[in-house]
C-alpha cells in the first residue's frame, strides 16, 4: 500500500482506457459490446486509472484485461477470483474487476467463485455467459442446455445447467445482476452499478458466441420476440413485459405467474425489490430463466449492504493494534519467554 500514489482524480474519458492492443475476438462476438460499455463506465467511477485492475482467468472472455489500458493480469484458468482476492486485500484502494467466462467461473473456477461471493470482498465479477467453451473451440459448459450438441457432446449433453445468478445468490454475493450484450444501455447501467457497489458484486452477461453457439439468446435479443421474453427489473417498479407492456409477472403468494396488466389495477401488481431482504423472491425470480415458458428477467436481483471482508480485516488490525500496540521488529523478536545466557 505504501507504494500507492494518491493523485487528485482527473476527468478521464473512454479513450484513456483504450489499450494499444487490438481486441482479437471473432468479428461479431458479444465480447466487443462488453468491452465498449466497460470503457464508458470506467471514467465514471472516479477512480484514477492506475488504481484499476482487471484480473482474468483463461477463455475468450478472459482476454479482456489486454484490451483496457489499466493494470491487467491474465492469469490461469479458473483462479481469477482467488488472485483478485489477494490483490484487493493487499491494497484496498484498488478497484478490482474479475472478468470471466461460464467455463472459467463455473467449471474449473466454481469453488473460488462461490467463496469470493461468500466473503464479500469488494470485487466486481463480470461473467460472460455464452453457454459454451469458446476458446477451446466449442465444448459444452456448465451453463449449456441439456441436449446441446457440441464437440464433446455429439449426441447431446446429458448435464443439467447451473443458473449462475442462483449460485451467486446462494453463495452470498451482495450485489447480483444480469444483463445482455445486445442491450448496450442496460449493460452499461448494470456494469456501472456493480462497479460502484461496495462488496462482492456479480454480473451475468448473456453473451453471444457467433462461432460456437450463435443465437443462443435469440429469444431475448431478436426484435420480433424479445418483448415477450425479456423483463427489465427495476427497483420498486412492477415487472411488466410484452410489446405494449401489457403483461406482468405477479407474485401469487407462492410463485411468480404471468398476468395481463389489464386484469389488475397497476398498484396491486407485485413490485420488484432489490434490497436483499427476501430470499424467497430472489430465488423465485432467478429460477424463471430456467423455465422455457416464463420470461427471463434482467436487472438487479439483490443489492444488499454489509461490511466487506477487507473492512473487517482492517478493523481487526486496528483493534488489535490499539489493544496491543503497534508491533515492531524489536518487540517481535523479544516476545515469548526469553532468557539470558551469560
Amino acid at each position, binding site marked *: *500500500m*505504501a*507504494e*500507492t*500514489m494518491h493523485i487528485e482524480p482527473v476527468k478521464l474519458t473512454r479513450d484513456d482506457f483504450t*489499450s494499444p*492492443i487490438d481486441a482479437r475476438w471473432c468479428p461479431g462476438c458479444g465480447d466487443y459490446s462488453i468491452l465498449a460499455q466497460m470503457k464508458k463506465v470506467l471514467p465514471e467511477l472516479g477512480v*484514477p*486509472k*492506475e*488504481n*484499476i*485492475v482487471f484480473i482474468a482467468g*483463461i477463455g475468450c472472455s478472459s482476454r479482456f*484485461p*489486454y484490451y483496457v*489500458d*489499466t*493494470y*491487467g*493480469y*491474465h*492469469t*490461469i484458468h479458473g*483462479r481469477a477470483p*482467488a*488472485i*483478485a*482476492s*489477494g*490483490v*484487493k*486485500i*493487499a*491494497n484496498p*484502494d*484498488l478497484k478490482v474487476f474479475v472478468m470471466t467466462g461460464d467455463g472459467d467461473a463455473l467449471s474449473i473456477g466454481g*469453488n*473460488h467463485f462461490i*467463496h469470493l461471493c461468500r466473503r464479500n470482498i469488494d470485487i466486481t465479477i463480470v461473467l460472460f455467459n455464452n453457454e459454451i467453451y469458446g476458446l477451446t473451440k466449442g465444448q459444452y459448459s456448465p451453463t449449456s442446455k441439456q441436449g446441446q450438441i457440441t464437440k464433446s457432446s455429439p449426441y447431446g449433453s446429458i448435464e443439467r445447467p447451473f443458473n449462475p445468478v442462483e449460485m451467486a445468490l446462494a453463495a452470498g454475493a451482495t450485489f447480483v445482476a444480469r444483463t445482455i450484450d445486445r442491450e448496450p444501455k442496460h449493460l452499461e447501467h448494470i456494469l456501472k452499478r456493480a462497479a460502484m457497489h461496495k462488496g462482492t458484486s456479480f454480473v451475468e452477461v448473456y453473451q453471444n458466441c457467433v462461432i460456437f453457439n450463435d443465437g443462443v439468446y435469440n429469444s431475448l435479443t431478436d426484435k420480433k420476440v424479445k418483448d415477450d421474453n425479456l423483463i427489465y427489473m427495476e427497483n420498486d417498479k412492477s415487472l411488466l413485459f410484452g410489446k405494449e407492456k401489457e403483461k406482468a409477472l405477479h407474485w401469487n403468494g407462492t410463485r411468480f405467474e404471468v398476468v395481463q396488466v389489464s386484469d389488475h389495477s397497476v398498484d396491486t401488481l407485485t413490485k420488484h425489490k432489490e434490497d436483499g431482504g427476501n430470499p424467497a423472491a430472489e430465488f423465485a425470480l432467478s429460477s424463471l430463466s430456467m423455465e422455457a415458458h416464463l420470461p427471463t428477467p434482467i436487472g438487479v436481483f439483490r443489492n444488499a449492504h454489509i461490511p466487506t471482508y477487507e473492512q473487517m*480485516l482492517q478493523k*481487526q*488490525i486496528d*483493534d*488489535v*493494534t490499539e*489493544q*496491543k500496540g*503497534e*508491533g515492531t*521488529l524489536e518487540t*517481535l*523478536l*523479544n516476545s*515469548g*519467554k*526469553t*532468557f*539470558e*545466557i551469560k
Partner: protein
Amino acid sequence: MSDKQVKTLESITIRFAGDSGDGMQLTGGQFTDTTAIAGNDLNTFPDYPAEIRAPVGTTFGVSGFQIQLSSKPVHTPGDAPDVLVAMNPAALKVNLPILRDNGIIIVNTDSFQQRNLDLAKYESNPLEDDSLKLYQVFRVPITTLTREALKDSPLRPKEKDRSKNFFALGMTYWMYTRSMEPTLEWINTKFKNKPELIKANTLALKAGYNFALSTEIFTTSYRIERASIKPGKYRNITGNEATALGFIAAAKKAGKELYLGSYPITPASDILHELSKYRNYGVKTFQAEDEIAGIASAIGASYAGDMAITTTSGPGLALKSEALGLAVITELPLVVVNVQRGGPSTGLPTKTEQADLMQAMYGRNGEAPVPIIAANSPSDCFNAAFEAMEVAFKFNTPVLLLTDGYIANGAEPWLIPKVDELPEIKVEYATDPDNYQPYKRDEETLSRTMAIPGMAGFEHHVGGLEKDITGNVSYVPEIHHEMVNLRAEKIKRVNNYTQEPELFGEPEGELLVISWGSTYGSVFKAMEEAKNRGLSVSWYHLRWINPLPKNLGTIIKHFKKVLVPEINLGQLVKLIRAEYLVDAQGFNRVLGLPLNSGELLEAIESHLKGL
C-alpha cells in the same frame, strides 16, 4: 536429600510418553523451557499420534515428547532415550523398542490394570513378568499419589487426575536438578482465571518433586552443567514459529506488509496459526478455500505489492504446481513454504520425510525453475525464511523453502538476533514511466522491472502466456526460446548472491558427505563421532539446493567417494550425480523418523571400508 547422590552427566535424553489426553506435549514443553533457562543446550522432538484421535489407552493414541539436554552443543533430540516416563502400558509398549539398553523407565503403576493392558495388547503385565529386566524400572503409583496430594481440592476426581503429568514433571525436575520456578510461574499465568487449577497443578508438581526427593526409590539425582553456548538472549522456538517470525522480520526489513494465503494442513498449519496472531504487526492471513486459492491469493497480493507467502505440506504443494508456474512466468516475488511430511498421497501426515525435493525442483509443467532453500533446524527456519525472501525480491521470483515435520514441531533455544544485524531488504520498482517495459531485466541478476497497481503511468499487462519484453503475448518462436533461457539463467545466477556453506572437515579425503535440510543435526552428530574416530570424512550441508553452490563441483573432486544421506529414496543424490557425474551413493531411510545418527555413522564407516 543429603543422603542422596548427585552425579554430573554431559547429556541426557528423556522421553515423556502417555495417552493423547495425558498432556505429554505440555509436560515436554515445560521441561524444555526450564532446561533452556538452566542454560543447557537442548533439542526436542514431539512425536504425537497421527490425526486419529484414538480411544484412550490404545497404542494408536500414544503421544511422545523427547528432549536431549546437554552441557555441549546438541543438534538432535537424541537417537535412543536414556529415560522413559511412561504414563500407561501403551506408552511403554510403543517406546520400549527405542530405549537404550539399561535405560531408566519411570512408570505410572496405577495404569497397569487389566483393561489398559488389554488395550495395549499386552498378554501379561510387563511390570510383573521379566520383560523389563534389562532396564532400571521405577514404579510409581502416580495417579494415587496425585489424588492423595489433591485430597483437599474441591475439584472432581477426573479433574484431579489431569494434574498427574505435573506430578511426573516434578519427579523429573528433582532427578535432573531443575528449578520448579519457571513452571510455577507458567501455571500462574496460564490458569489465572482458574485458581483451583493453579492450586492443584502447583500441589501436584511439588508433590512429585518431594516424592522423588524423599522416597527411597530414587537414590541419585543428576546435574547437567550449563552449556557453554554463545552468550545472549535466547528463547525456545519451534521451526514453524521461527518460520513465521522470519517472514515478519523480512517484511519489516523491506517496509512491506506481510500477506499469507494458506489452507490448513499438518504439519504446516502452525505457521498460519502463529501468523494470524500478529494483526498488530500488519500481518494479513487469508485462510483460503484450498491450497490453490492459497497460492493464487498470495500471487495476487504479491502482484499488488505485499510481501507474499503461502505455506503448505506435500499434497498441498502438488495442488499449487500449476499456479506456481504462473508466478514463475510472471516473475513475481513469493515464498512457498513446504513443510514436508511422509508421502506419497496422504501418506503419513504427522511423520517427517524429505521426499518432496524432486517435486520442488520439477513439479510444474514446462521449464519452470525456482530457487530452493532448506532449513537445517528449528531456529534456523528463521534465517531460511528471511533469506528466501531476500532472494525472492532480489530476483523477482517465487522461491521454495523446504522444512519438514521434524524441525517444524521440534524446538531448540534460539539466540535472538539483534534488529540491526538483520539486513535491509531492498525492493525496487520502475522509475521511468515513459520507457517502462515490465520484462526489461537487470543485467546482473536478470531480474525484471516491477511496477505495481497504484503506480501512475506504469499501467501494463502481464499473464501466463509467453510474452515479449513489453509483457504482451508473443508467439514468436525465437522469443519463446529466449525467454525460457532467460528464466533459467536468472535462477542459475542466484548463487552469485548467496553464501556458500562451509565444509566441515578437511578439504580433501576419502569420503564426502553431502546432506540438506533437517538431517543437519543427525549428520552433525555422526560427523563429530567420525572425527573422534579419526575417519577421513568431510561434510557439506547444503542450504540452497537450486542452484547448487558454485564450489561444490570443485569440493567433490577432492574426495574419492560421496555419500548422500536423505530421508527419501535418493533425490538430492540424483541431482548431484547428474550435475557432477560423480558416483555418489545414497544412504536412505524412509521411516517417518529423523535420521538415526548411529546408523549413519555405520554407513560412513562401511563406505570408507569399501574404498
